[in-house]
């Protein structure tokens, strides 16, 4: 990739003076495809393919994309739940040192783990049903050397209060709680070790609408109060728009666009981002979108197409898109896109049609696209 150094310098967000909390550089995670009796490696799934971005202290960076785009794999690499194949993940510790998380051993990682914590998607599967709230939330404390039960008890009671649960619930089991309450318990557990970076993998997508709003409010409030930094992995763009400062869009293992939230929602520069936004159903029956569907299927990360990975589905593809892989480049200050035509396209984010029923037929693909 030609643009790597430029990208490395460029993907830094606003306020980079103090240095970002996390710098991800050319991160790659390949999973081998094995075949036959001898488990011969016949290829690789490029789950994360040359991804670079920064996360500033105190901001929320959203990582969005469809299933299989590599957003969860990226998050798991940062948590070092898995080891990346190559690349750097430079983390600024509480003491001010900058450590590359990628090559560290289990032992070397141990003192850093409390600073990076995770909130899980499924509030039913992520809490141990045989452990009380105290044991569930207090376990990270115990693992990190808080041996005194009374100290742990006080700390857990305080954490429950922070996430809006009554400390009296300490000795209840997870089954006694609703989905939203369980997610609060999960958040309390993530906060137990006073993390600096919280990786939230779809933290509200399993919750009901009314409860989702409560948990989103809690996450925003905690961020302000505890100066947390979030990496927010999500597919729900309405939630992302509400909670994040910047948005990174992934497609087939690559970052295709990265920009401040308002910029990306007002004027996306990558056709895939625009297509994702058009596909979100608008909660207003008067704005019935027409044929918003992208044609075709998401490309396989095991054998991505040549050129731009998105070109087989892209309504704006030109000859160059089929042969030359585009680089992630700056289109506007702080706005990066991986598209040959990012400068010339004016992409629509809402496909509004007066009456779907009387639609005459498919419109020419570029009718709404090119200026």
């Amino acid at each position, binding site marked *: 990739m030609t643009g790597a150094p430029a990208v490395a310098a460029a993907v830094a967000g606003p306020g980079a003076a103090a240095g970002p909390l996390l710098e991800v550089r050319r991160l790659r995670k390949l999973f081998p495809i094995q075949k036959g009796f001898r488990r011969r490696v016949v290829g690789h799934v490029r789950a994360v393919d040359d991804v670079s971005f920064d996360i500033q202290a105190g901001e929320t960076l959203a990582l969005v994309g469809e299933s299989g785009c590599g957003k969860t794999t990226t998050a798991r690499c940062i948590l070092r739940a898995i080891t990346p194949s190559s690349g750097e993940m430079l983390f600024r510790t509480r003491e001010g040192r900058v450590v590359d998380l990628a090559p560290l051993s289990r032992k070397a990682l141990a003192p850093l783990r409390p600073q990076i914590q995770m909130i899980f998607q499924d509030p039913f599967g992520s809490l141990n049903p045989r452990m009380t709230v105290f044991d569930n939330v207090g376990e990270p404390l115990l693992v990190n050397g808080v041996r005194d039960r009374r100290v742990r008890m006080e700390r857990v009671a305080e954490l429950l209060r922070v996430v809006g649960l009554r400390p009296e619930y300490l000795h209840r089991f997870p089954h006694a709680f609703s989905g939203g309450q369980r997610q609060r318990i999960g958040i309390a557990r993530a906060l137990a070790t006073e993390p600096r970076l919280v990786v939230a993998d779809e933290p509200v997508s399993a919750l009901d609408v*009314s409860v989702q709003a409560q948990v989103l409010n809690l996450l925003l409030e905690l961020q302000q109060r505890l100066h947390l930094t979030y990496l927010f992995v999500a597919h729900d763009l309405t*939630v992302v728009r509400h909670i994040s400062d910047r948005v990174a869009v992934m497609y087939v293992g690559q970052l295709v666009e990265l920009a401040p939230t308002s910029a990306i929602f007002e004027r996306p520069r990558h056709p895939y981002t625009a297509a994702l936004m058009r596909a979100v159903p608008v909660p*207003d029956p*008067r704005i019935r979108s027409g044929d918003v569907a992208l044609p075709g299927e998401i490309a396989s990360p095991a054998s991505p197409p040549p050129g731009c990975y998105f070109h087989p589905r892209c309504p704006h593809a030109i000859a160059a898109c089929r042969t030359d892989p585009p680089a992630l480049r700056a289109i506007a200050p702080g706005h990066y896109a991986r598209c040959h035509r990012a400068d010339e396209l004016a992409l629509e984010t809402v496909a509004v049609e007066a009456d779907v029923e009387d639609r005459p037929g498919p419109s020419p693909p570029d009718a709404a696209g090119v200026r």
Partner: protein
Amino acid sequence: MPPTRTAIDPGTPGGGPAPARSMTEAGPPLLSVRDLRVAFFMDEGVVRAVDGVSFDVASGEVVGIVGESGCGKTVTTRAILQLVEPPGRIVSGQILLRRGATADGNGPGAPVLDLAALPPRGPAMRAIRGAEIALIPQEPMAAFSPVHTVGDQIMEAILLHWRQWRPDGPPLRRRDARQITVELFRDVGIAMPEQRVDAYSWQLSGGLRQRAMIAMALSCKPRLLIADEPTTAIDVTTQAQVLNLLRDLRRRHRTAIIFITHDLGVIAQIADRVLVMYLGRVMEQGRVDDIFHAPKHPYTRALLRSIPMRHAGRRDPLPVIAGSIPHPFNRPTGCPFHPRCPDVRRGVCERRVPRLDPVGPAQWASCFLYGDGEATA
């Protein structure tokens, strides 16, 4: 309309809210659910999962049922298919299906069958299930057998119902059933249908699997399609494809669709009429435009307010509904929503259950803000 008139809602002319609308706009309904009650009899107590639900569905109409987990939306549709599993059962109510030869040929004299009165495992119900009323389940991965090809599973349904319909006619050959399946796959937009028929469900992507599921649901040309959160487990771009497909089907075959979801965006995009449910009761019912632009029930209003997109200020706290959905064993007295309701009237809402009363020309809400009518228990 004699077939659907019941004594359940004596206060509303025409025997309940929905018929009034169906009479004026779309002829007699294909399906009329009347005061349906489904309960689960557990050791710990009785859960009233569906507690007096009435609505109509006409041919070519999409009725959306929205509500949060535990509101009874899925159980309602399971009851229509007589698929409520023990310890649950239909306690009372009617599920009236108007039977006709074709989707649009249900004349006023067509016979009406009460599905709730049929034995769940009897031949009559089996002939309806899958053939006249089909289901698109939420999880296409779990709904297909992993050890049979998707084509085999769809052909099985075609062959089975063919025999039911034409016990004396010539048997359908397997080759013909396969051809029908290929055509169905083409119809729902599966590329390379001849090859995909022989694929196993786990070889298909999420979108293709859901399309295959829809093809299976359509295999016997049902007049009513029940889509139970058909797009919840799939990505937005695939969801857009599936929604387009369902809209297209409705237009081409005049299939009636009951669409269940918790996603208000999806409902706004696909439904003609909407039922808002909470703890087994219909809170509000009306045309989609009225529900979204003139919601009457405090619960509908609160649900709409909690969608982030409708809220202009980014990062501002979202308006929330206080508390959480009560546990089914701790069902509140009176109006089920009263403990969380911002407009609760003390002394009224916790004592009595409001009746679903008209609040507009084609809109009904069960709330004491709009009337004093009390539901019959």
